[in-house]
């Protein structure tokens, strides 16, 4: 590709990534911006400037969503990393890995419907713990798939070597794998947190209206026809992942250290 072509492609990508942000900012700053108007006619900034009850509620929900996503991500990544190691040691690792694809064969909404009854019977509906429990299988399976490539022949041999040099299991994980798998663990944490952060179906079904998340709130605003508030909430929704990606692009692209050993 020529230099000009590459620059054009880069500009197009930047435009595609920033366009939703621009659109959401515009939507949140305008009133009655409707088709066929191509540009907003009435501007209104009060909702960004006045810290009212609605904002306080939105921030509280953002905190709850962050906590939920963090718990799911940490539990799924930890379990997924250990499981992927156990799978890498099996002769028929590919078969075991195929099992990790099973949760994705069922659409979350169908899965949520099936869980609904059971969770209600176990009194897990309407609790954050129930939502964590429902989201976890997806996040866990994804963490297994994401961390599996870390277990190269080289890294498995390092595991044995550390054992041979006298390391106890905890020391091997702490002194060898944690520093080496920093990149892959970061990706796992980020991606599984996103799964929980953007989840709608499971929170709606298992949360039974008593568990609120930011994603749910955006849908509620849209359902109520409050486009401005929905746009403001949607900006809050996409800001944390966008910020994380800006600070560390390796959350999408593996770090060089990890690639060097594969």
């Amino acid at each position, binding site marked *: 590709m020529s230099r000009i072509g590459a620059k054009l492609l880069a500009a197009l990508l930047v435009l595609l990534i920033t366009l939703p942000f621009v659109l959401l900012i515009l939507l949140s700053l305008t009133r009655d911006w409707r088709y066929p108007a191509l540009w907003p006619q009435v501007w209104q900034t009060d909702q960004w400037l006045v810290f009212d009850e609605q904002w306080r509620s939105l921030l509280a929900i953002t905190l709850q969503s962050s906590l939920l996503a963090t718990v799911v991500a940490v539990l799924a990544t930890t379990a997924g990393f250990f499981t992927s190691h156990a799978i890498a040691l099996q002769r028929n690792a590919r078969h075991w890995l195929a099992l990790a694809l099973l949760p994705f064969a069922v659409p979350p909404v169908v899965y949520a419907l099936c869980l609904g009854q059971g969770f209600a019977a176990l009194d897990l509906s309407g609790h954050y713990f129930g939502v964590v429990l429902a989201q976890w299988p997806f996040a866990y399976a994804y963490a297994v798939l994401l961390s599996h490539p870390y277990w190269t022949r080289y890294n498995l041999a390092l595991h044995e070597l*550390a054992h041979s*040099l*006298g390391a106890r299991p905890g020391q091997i994980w702490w*002194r060898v794998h944690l*520093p*080496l798998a920093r990149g892959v663990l970061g990706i796992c944490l980020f991606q599984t947190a996103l799964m929980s952060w953007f989840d709608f179906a499971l929170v709606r079904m298992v949360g039974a209206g008593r568990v609120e998340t930011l994603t749910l709130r955006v849908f509620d605003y849209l359902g109520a026809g409050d486009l401005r508030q929905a746009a403001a909430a949607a900006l809050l929704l996409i800001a944390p992942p966008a910020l994380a990606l800006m600070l560390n692009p390796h959350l999408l692209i593996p770090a060089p250290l990890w690639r060097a050993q594969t």
Partner: protein
Amino acid sequence: MTKALAHRWLSVHGLSKTYGDTPVFAGLDLNLARGQTLAIIGPSGCGKTTLLRILAGLARADSGCVQIDDKDVTEATPQARGAVYLYQEPLLFPHLDVFENIAFGLRLRALPRARINTEVETMLVALELTQLARRRPESLSGGQRQRVAFGRALAIKPALLLLDEPFSNLDPQTRANMQQLCKRLTRQHHSSVVFVTHDLKEALIMGDGFGRLSQGRYHAYQDRAAFCADAASGVQAELAFWRDGAAGRPPRES
């Protein structure tokens, strides 16, 4: 130490291993005296690596027992055995520099910082790697990497050092240097070593005792002369090859 005890530093009795339906070896017995090096030769795929991995506790035998210093370690975990297994390819921790790689085993034992520094610096001098102490593994040559791996193993003063063709990937000159270095350092540290190779010359340079593993059977030689005299060891064929070459005769067909 009595002579009897000296001859029982490492004792292996009736060791057997199969992979699926394929037997690797059966009824294997071997002994190694403290501070000695046992060189084991054998063709590729004869089970040399499997034997070392069992001795290190990284693989399980189907039957038999392993004793180190009169203690039965057959069921012991690798970290409880004090036997360090050195791979054919020099495995270094890529996130640690040369100094920290050598210090790895010492830090696991939570030794005082000053003692770790002294021991690692002494080892760096012995390995002639002082100038490279803060270099990362990826910037080292194959020989330097192998020296670091070797120093890291020796630094923890292992009860048993298990070397799996450690110099096979090195060029002839580096290999010769490493053999001398290895011999000197294991003598200095009074290390007990099982050295596996398929190179006869290397076996003769490194070994104090000799064994041959072939077709699932282990044969221990009484001494160096017995090893050289045995047609199956390949030494006689090697000597004939060089004698013919020196006399200007073409090599004989085997």
